[in-house]
């Protein structure tokens, strides 16, 4: 156990670590509730990347010179940090990508080329972000395969019985989100994976909204593939992770090709390098990977359990306050739910609401949240979404409620 585990969750210290939280917006103290879109960065991350550029920058792997070696080591050590973070078995199962979307596209292409043919089926859920729908649709179109969708109920929970019915000997892959970005449902991914495995079907989990809110253990989940983004977990933009079990990564063909990931190149034939290089074509975003490792260090030092507890308290508090607001309707009432409240105000367009809330210096997101099918399911065109992070406070929730009051006053 970490030594900090015994300390209180020091919210003031944590807020002090994030420079941007101390600015003003529209002459009001800034309140940021758009964390599901992207999170802010602690000083550790900002300064770590700054240091790369000022002191050690060099391209990695093939250089014999000193700084190339230093940067290679830091990049590979970032890989080891990620491995430890999600408890993967091997470093070479960690592939750096530019983000979740890139990771899912990698999977859809490489896994698809190897395993998916005509009339085969891919299963996704009704709770997916577009990033975990469209690449599979494109694959199905290319291969004439079928996309099947696990339905959800009115609470925003997936129907596991339906899911069981859906699996058959044409099912090649199940791709589900760990946490739904639109309404916060935490899916029972371990159960979902277990059921798929009974049929020998591999599972990809979209962890974009999960890794920043609690510990994830890919071996415990027995996930075959797991993807996430750096920028949503307090790390930099332009970096993400694709985890794949070794046997899958060995089996599937590379996705992007180019320098570094090849072994031998002639115009007649090219052979590919070993894992993880096989999947990392071109110069990787090594600065981003090093920054991501700094973010992970920060999360681990703070303690993911403590973060989860703090965020749960915030969510409960916000739910309680929202329940008292007339005409406010929350979408998503799953028993397991994380950090996101998606709501509408009766007869008020989310866009109108968002524009007024913004004037209070408060950032929320409005619209479909790249999850149009979820909106369709609820028969709405969009919501106002407040998504919380480790640095948010109850006072900020109060300020949001105040702004909502004003919205109602203006448009009610």
């Amino acid at each position, binding site marked *: 156990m970490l030594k900090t585990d015994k300390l209180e969750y020091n919210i003031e210290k944590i807020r002090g670590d994030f420079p941007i939280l101390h600015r003003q917006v529209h002459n009001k103290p800034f309140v940021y509730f758009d964390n599901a879109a992207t999170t802010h960065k602690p000083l550790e991350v900002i300064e770590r990347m700054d240091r790369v550029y000022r002191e050690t920058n060099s391209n990695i792997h093939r250089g014999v010179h000193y700084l190339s070696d230093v940067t290679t080591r830091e990049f590979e050590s970032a890989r080891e940090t990620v491995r430890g973070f999600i408890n993967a078995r091997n470093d070479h199962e960690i592939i750096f990508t530019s983000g979740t979307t890139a990771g899912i596209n990698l999977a859809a292409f490489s896994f698809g080329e190897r395993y998916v043919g005509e009339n085969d089926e891919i299963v996704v859920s009704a709770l997916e972000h577009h990033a975990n729908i469209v690449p599979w649709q494109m694959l199905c179109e290319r291969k004439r395969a079928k996309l099947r969708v696990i339905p959800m109920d009115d609470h925003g929970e997936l129907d596991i019985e339906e899911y069981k019915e859906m699996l058959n000997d044409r099912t090649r892959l199940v791709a589900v989100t760990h946490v739904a970005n639109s309404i916060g449902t935490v899916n029972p991914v371990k159960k979902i994976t277990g059921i798929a495995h009974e049929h020998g079907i591999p599972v990809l989990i979209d962890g974009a909204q999960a890794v920043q809110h609690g510990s994830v253990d890919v071996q415990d989940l027995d996930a075959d593939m797991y993807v996430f983004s750096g920028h949503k977990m307090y790390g930099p933009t332009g970096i993400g992770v694709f985890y794949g079990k070794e046997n899958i990564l060995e089996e599937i063909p590379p996705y992007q090709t180019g320098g570094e990931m090849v072994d031998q190149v002639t115009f007649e034939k090219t052979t590919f390098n070993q894992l993880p290089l096989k999947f990392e074509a071109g110069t990787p975003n090594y600065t981003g990977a090093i920054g991501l490792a700094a973010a992970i260090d920060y999360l681990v030092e703070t303690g993911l359990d403590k973060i989860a507890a703090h965020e749960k308290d915030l969510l409960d508090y916000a739910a309680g306050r929202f329940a008292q607001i007339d005409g406010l309707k929350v979408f998503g009432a799953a028993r397991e739910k994380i950090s996101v409240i998606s709501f509408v105000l009766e007869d008020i367009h989310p*866009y*109108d609401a968002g*524009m007024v809330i913004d*004037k209070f210096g408060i950032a929320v997101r409005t619209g479909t949240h790249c999850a149009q099918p979820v909106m369709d399911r609820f028969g709405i*065109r969009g919501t106002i979404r407040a998504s919380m992070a480790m640095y948010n406070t109850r006072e900020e929730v109060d300020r949001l409620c105040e702004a909502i009051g004003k919205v109602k006053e*203006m448009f009610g």
Partner: protein
Amino acid sequence: MDMEKVQEEIVEEFGLFDDWMDKYNHLIELSRSLPVIDEKYKKPEFLIEGCQSRVWLNAAMEDGRVVYTADSDAVITKGIIALLIRVLSGRTPDEILENDLWFIDRIGLKENLSPTRSNGLISMIKQMKLYALAYKAKNQKTGRNGESG
């Protein structure tokens, strides 16, 4: 009143308000004055892309002048279109195509009113000008204003 005058009037109107809440309230007020599009035109063909809220826009030619009707599901957006229509509706195609909508910057519509989706605003103006262009071309074809294509 010519387009310049109307724009000056709007700038003056907005100048009365110190803070943004008042400006928004004024837009909400204005939204009620929007000449509403006929229900039968509330179809995808009349929807403007690039807006966070849905905006439908139609135009008709009356006595050589373009008359716009519109609607939106968001109130503030409606207020904005009402402003655009106040300036552009009932003008000749040439007036609409040649005049600059400088009032937008002066009342801070672009920067302050629709923070991200000034895209939406640009799309609306573009669509209004496209209608004017279409009617102008039609007029020219039928030889009504003497110029040749």
